[in-house]
């Protein structure tokens, strides 16, 4: 705090605790690699998420071509298995979750009036570890290519790309039945779990501890509330997956018997552990989407959110109940009548808080002066499409019905309505809503409306017929089907729908690129919105707020603009010391690279490739050294002095 107040905007290159000069680049690629700025981290998360979203989309279009007609032979059954595995894993862990993490990173500090997250370097660590996990999972394609070219031939020689489904059921995923693809999958997911847990711990501390003065918990924007609940779900749900993956890894590498049936291992154990993680994961994905919707609807209905406390508590109830319904994925495994009945009831119960939220959103629309901008179209579409997925979900909760629907396309229809009709619609609506804030540029024209039209039509043409296919008995995860089944025409329709949907999503991406290239300046508050991110410049400066706002109401900015004089926004006085900002660091990136080396080489080690065990240990050493350098580097920091004319 002793730095001179005269140095306005000058940045002193400081020595860190270990005697190395810390990076202090404010532009160029060094800046991106070493940044601890939550806004830049958000951009990298979101771009990576969109990239993998496109990858997962291409994977599924290949699948749909294969299924478009009976007895097609477009791809081999082995490739088919690999593609549906990678489609599911990619979309959940590498598509949806990083885009959501991008939203968390960009919005949470801005919405609570903070300058950054609680642990900025840990935040960068989460990003790079996520990238490492994504690379470990997808590099399997490269090794498979090398195998096809005859350069690489691991022991067993079976699937090098994971082919075990996104749920990786043991013992299929155990040693005897699958190739090193399963190792890439195990290490990839394990590393992604580290990233998710670290990020979630960071966000919980940020939301609980870094709120601006006056920002009580019941004044938090709903998106921030949903982030908080989601983060709690992540830190309590991921450990079950971590341990399941650890047990599976030990079965594969060290010959343990967790899932080895001949030695008494129980395959059902995997199912329980996986779904104790897997079902909360569903809510980890949908709760942030609900948060986005709860921000968009009030802004364009020109009304406060109807029943704010009820929406918040419903979110919390969904979070709690989300841990109590995992066995509805396992009704057909013979849990026994009591367990089945209990999980059936709890699953029905979880529809209640969800339904409450839907009524609240409709109540927000009711009597409002509705403006159908592109984000609003997505938000209204979300309510409708998500409800369709919800209804078929309630159908699954009845165990007898579920045992008919298990492993059929009916289930595929259900969760795609929830994921695309719910999560993707909300996230794209959110991108349209906050892109002007993120980039300072405003989208315009009709392309956005056309895109959402194609998305909704494509979604329904793709997934609505799947309900019928499923009830007619078409099984999931099956390479092809006979002409006599009569599934052909509907499948052709589904494939056409998938291409319409893909076209719609492509239009969204084109619209974003167009906005970035030639969008007009958006201004600070284009939507006349309610939350604190809109009082900053677009795009926000590195320190977010020149002066920390003092919050006097829920929807503080709205009351500042339109409310009584007593709600006029005030700011904390300048203490003359300037704004304390965290320093950049190389070590989050270094630990991420170490994790990547470890994941790839241990997977190859499992395939009997020489020297890979040593390389894996090398990766662990890189991680350890990185952590130590990180710790002894110290948090660092410098002081910014925004000039007074810059303040609002």
């Amino acid at each position, binding site marked *: *705090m*002793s730095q001179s107040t005269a140095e306005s905007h000058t940045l002193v290159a400081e020595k860190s*605790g270990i005697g190395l000069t810390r990076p202090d680049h404010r532009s160029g690629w060094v800046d991106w690699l070493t940044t601890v700025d939550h806004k830049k981290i958000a951009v990298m998360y979101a771009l990576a998420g969109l990239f993998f979203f496109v990858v997962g989309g291409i994977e599924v279009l290949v699948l749909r071509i294969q299924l478009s007609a009976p007895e097609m032979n477009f791809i081999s059954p082995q490739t088919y298995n690999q593609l549906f595995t990678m489609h599911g894993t990619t979309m959940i862990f590498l598509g949806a979750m990083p885009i959501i993490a991008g939203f968390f990173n960009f919005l949470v500090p801005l919405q609570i009036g903070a300058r950054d997250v*609680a*642990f900025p370097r840990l935040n960068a660590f989460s990003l790079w570890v996520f990238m490492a996990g994504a690379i470990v999972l997808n590099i399997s394609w490269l090794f498979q290519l090398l195998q096809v070219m005859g350069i690489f031939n691991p022991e067993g020689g079976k699937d090098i790309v994971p082919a075990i489904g996104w749920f990786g059921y043991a013992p299929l995923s155990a040693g005897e039945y699958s190739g090193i693809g399963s190792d890439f999958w195990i290490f990839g997911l394990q590393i992604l779990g580290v990233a998710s*847990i670290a990020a979630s*711990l*960071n966000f*919980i*501390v940020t939301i*609980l*501890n*870094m*709120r601006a003065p006056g*920002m009580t918990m019941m004044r938090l924007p709903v998106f921030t509330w949903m982030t908080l609940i989601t983060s709690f779900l992540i*830190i*309590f*749900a*991921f*450990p*079950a997956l*971590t*341990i*399941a993956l*650890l*047990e599976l890894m*030990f*079965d594969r590498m*060290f*010959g*343990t*018997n*967790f899932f080895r049936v001949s*030695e*008494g*291992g*129980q395959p059902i*154990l995997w199912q329980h*552990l996986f779904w104790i993680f897997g079902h909360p994961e569903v809510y980890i994905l949908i709760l942030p989407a609900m948060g986005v919707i709860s921000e968009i609807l009030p802004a364009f209905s020109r009304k406060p959110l109807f029943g704010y406390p009820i929406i918040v508590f419903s979110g919390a109830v969904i979070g709690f109940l989300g841990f109590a319904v995992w066995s509805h994925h396992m009704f057909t495994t013979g849990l026994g009548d009591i367990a089945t009945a209990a999980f059936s009831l709890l699953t029905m119960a979880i529809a209640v808080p969800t339904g409450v939220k839907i009524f609240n959103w409709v109540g927000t629309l009711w009597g409002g002066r509705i403006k159908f901008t592109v984000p609003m179209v997505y938000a209204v579409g979300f309510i409708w499409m998500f409800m369709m997925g919800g209804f078929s979900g309630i159908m699954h909760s009845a165990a007898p019905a579920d045992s008919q629907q298990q492993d059929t396309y009916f289930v595929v229809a259900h969760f795609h309505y929830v994921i695309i009709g719910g999560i993707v619609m909300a996230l794209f609506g959110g991108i349209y809503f906050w892109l002007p804030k993120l980039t300072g540029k405003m989208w315009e024209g009709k392309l956005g409306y056309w895109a959402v039209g194609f998305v909704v039509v494509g979604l329904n043409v793709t997934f609505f017929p799947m309900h019928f296919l499923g009830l007619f008995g078409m099984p999931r995860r099956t390479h092809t089907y006979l002409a006599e089944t009569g599934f052909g025409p509907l499948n052709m329709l589904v494939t056409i729908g998938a291409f319409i949907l893909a076209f719609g999503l492509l239009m969204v991406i084109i619209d974003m690129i167009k906005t970035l290239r030639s969008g007009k300046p958006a201004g600070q508050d284009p939507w006349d919105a309610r939350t604190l991110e809109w009082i900053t410049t677009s795009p926000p400066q590195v320190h977010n707020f020149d002066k920390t706002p003092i919050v006097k109401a829920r929807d503080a900015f709205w009351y500042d603009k339109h409310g009584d004089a007593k709600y006029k926004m005030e700011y904390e006085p300048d203490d003359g*010391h300037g704004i*304390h900002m965290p320093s950049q660091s190389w070590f989050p990136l270094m630990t991420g690279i170490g994790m990547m080396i470890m994941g790839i080489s241990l997977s190859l080690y499992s395939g009997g490739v020489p020297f890979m065990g040593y390389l894996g240990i090398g990766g662990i050493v890189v991680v350890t050294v990185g952590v*130590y350098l990180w*710790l*002894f580097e*110290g*948090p*660092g*920091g410098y*002081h910014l002095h925004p000039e007074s004319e810059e303040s609002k």
Partner: protein
Amino acid sequence: MSEASVAVSHGDGSSTGIDNKKLMMWLFLGSDCMFFGTLISTHLIYRKLYPNPEVSPTEIFSIDLTTASSFILLMSSFLMALAVSAMHKGEMKSYRRMTWGVILFGLIFLGFQVYEFNHFIHHYDFTIQSGTMGSTFYLMTGTHGCHVAIGVLILLSQLIASYKGKLTTANSMDVEVAGLYWHFVDIVWIIIFSAVYLVEYL
């Protein structure tokens, strides 16, 4: 560490009044509960499912030895509490002495565990591949052992930092957070000791 961050690290200006690092550690321990919960319940479920494994636990367990090592781990927690308290009072010398004690006790516990594993493997041929019980037992106790080892590393690093003058009484929160972790690892051992060792003698 700059002065500014020291001021922040004592909870000043945090909305809840709890220090960021401390809150983070509590949350991490909550998450860690789920890790151990999964491991311990896997072990107990398989024990219930297969009540008569090839190697009987009561035959191979040396309960005297495990009780002794459990007692030593408990006492290390006592020393840890003294170390944290010394740090808060600014008594560097006492902090160092107590932390050396914690590290020593932690290492003794780990030594017992290495001896136990070694004994099981070479005398009773009870390995990680011996049925489901071998797998669950070694993975669970091994994971706990890793936690203790990481704890020893953290405490040792802090101790070295204190000799180098990098850890001063201004950083007492860092010691307290390390203490929280150490106590938690201890409590987990109490649960494992009761649910895995003692229960077998009922």
